[in-house]
């Protein structure tokens, strides 16, 4: 009977490979949908799939706090706001959210492929020439330590991010007031 317990416990360990595969598929399929779909809403769904996959990867790397923050902020808030802005800008004839397609698109695809594949190619060569050892998985960092790091050694970066956010918010308010004055 003890063997069964051990067997099942080691089974959990092996789950990480298929799970990694599932997350990878989510990221790739989501990314392709986001880029290739003509319908803006479907592209957004692709983006959300990718964000979910990335959150799952954070879980696998034993960083659950960042994974949950990814879901809370990106899936729960940012993409919902993108959704909202697409809904608000929908044209009266009903097919807004569609990208305009034309002959220009071929050129764009070539440019996009170059800018996407060139870095991947260079990085790939470097990685295959100097294959680094797999990094050992670090134990989960508790949020107390994370919080201490944010207001300690990384306080400058933390403050800078808040300044950026504040600027964006103040800019949005300012734009809103300008629009209202014109009326």
């Amino acid at each position: 009977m003890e063997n069964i317990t051990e067997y099942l416990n080691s089974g959990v360990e092996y789950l990480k490979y298929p799970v990694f595969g599932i997350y990878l598929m989510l990221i790739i399929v989501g990314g392709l949908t986001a880029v290739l779909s003509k319908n803006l809403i479907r592209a957004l769904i692709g983006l959300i799939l990718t964000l979910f996959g990335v959150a799952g990867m954070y879980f696998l790397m034993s960083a659950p706090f960042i994974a949950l923050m990814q879901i809370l902020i990106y899936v729960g808030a940012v993409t919902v706001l993108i959704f909202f802005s697409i809904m608000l800008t929908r044209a009266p004839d009903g097919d807004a959210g569609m990208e305009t397609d034309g002959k220009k698109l071929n050129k764009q695809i070539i440019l996009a492929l170059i800018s996407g594949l060139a870095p991947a190619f260079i990085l790939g060569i470097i990685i295959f020439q100097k294959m680094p050892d797999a990094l050992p998985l670090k134990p989960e960092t508790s949020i107390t330590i994370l919080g201490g790091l944010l207001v300690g050694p990384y306080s400058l970066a933390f403050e800078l991010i808040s300044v950026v956010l504040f600027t964006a918010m103040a800019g949005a308010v300012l734009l809103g007031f300008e629009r209202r004055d014109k009326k």
Partner: protein
Amino acid sequence: MINFLSIPLIHIIVALVAILAFIGLNGVVLVYMERKVAGFIQRRPGPYEVGPQGLLQPVADALKLLGKQLTSPMGADKILFWSAPIISFAPVVVCFLPIPFGPSPNSTGMELNLGLLLVLAFSGINVFALCMTGWGSNNKYSLLGAARAVSQSVAYEIPLLLAVLSIAFQTGSLNLSEIVQSQQGVIHWHIFMQPLAFIIYFISATAETNRAPFDLPEAESELTAGFHTEYSGMTFGLFFLAEYAYMIVVCSVATALFLGGWDGPFFDGFWWFLFKVYALMLVLMWFRWTYPRVRFDQLLNICWKWLIPLSVLNLILTAFFIKLVH
């Protein structure tokens, strides 16, 4: 005899099955409860014909929903339309995992250090499902309902998070079991130390679950049925089940954060947890049949002019007192 529940994989599978059964059973019980409560508040008997005291009414409702044909409107985005009910329902199952129903380790689905955060993160996905219904249904009522749902939940998530944060400040933990353990004995319940946070949490939670008086996304007198206008049969049933399940989740979190969880004046155990959750559910139902629906500007004013400033004040005061004590 080995303890199979101590093996993580089996524990999680058993927990998931139990949660699904719990959600289904709750759906049946709560439908009956809601209709009876509504009836009594309006001085009528409520469901009465099917079974003794109308006890079999929810079963009849469920069978009716199961037997209905599933239709989708012309010009709907099929993928969005059919996947939205599933996306609305699936995350709520995850939300139940970290909730401690009782003192024994077996009564928590998954012991997580960030359990509270998990609940908050996964319950946020529901808004996204509502957006998908709004866009996918190709119906102006659905779209309006979805637009309302988004602005409502984005606004009310802030005071909700701030109220929860003040409890996290006080206990120094996001693990729901630890938070419950820190309030043993009735006087230590957080509701007595943080009454303002509890009120803010409960109002925001009512708004987040789209319950009356904040049920603007599905306001039946204005928007037919709001975001789920076009859904029939079990797809509507899934939204319904998800809504009740989210109500149970917010009431469970309120119980764990503010009301001492499974701790009671005597005989600690899961019965206290369930009793408190159901008491809070009754309060939610009482709200629904007492207050008229708020107007949209009133809804946003309550949030931005009252709840957010009050919750920030509460947070600052909490931080100040914690600094004072240490």
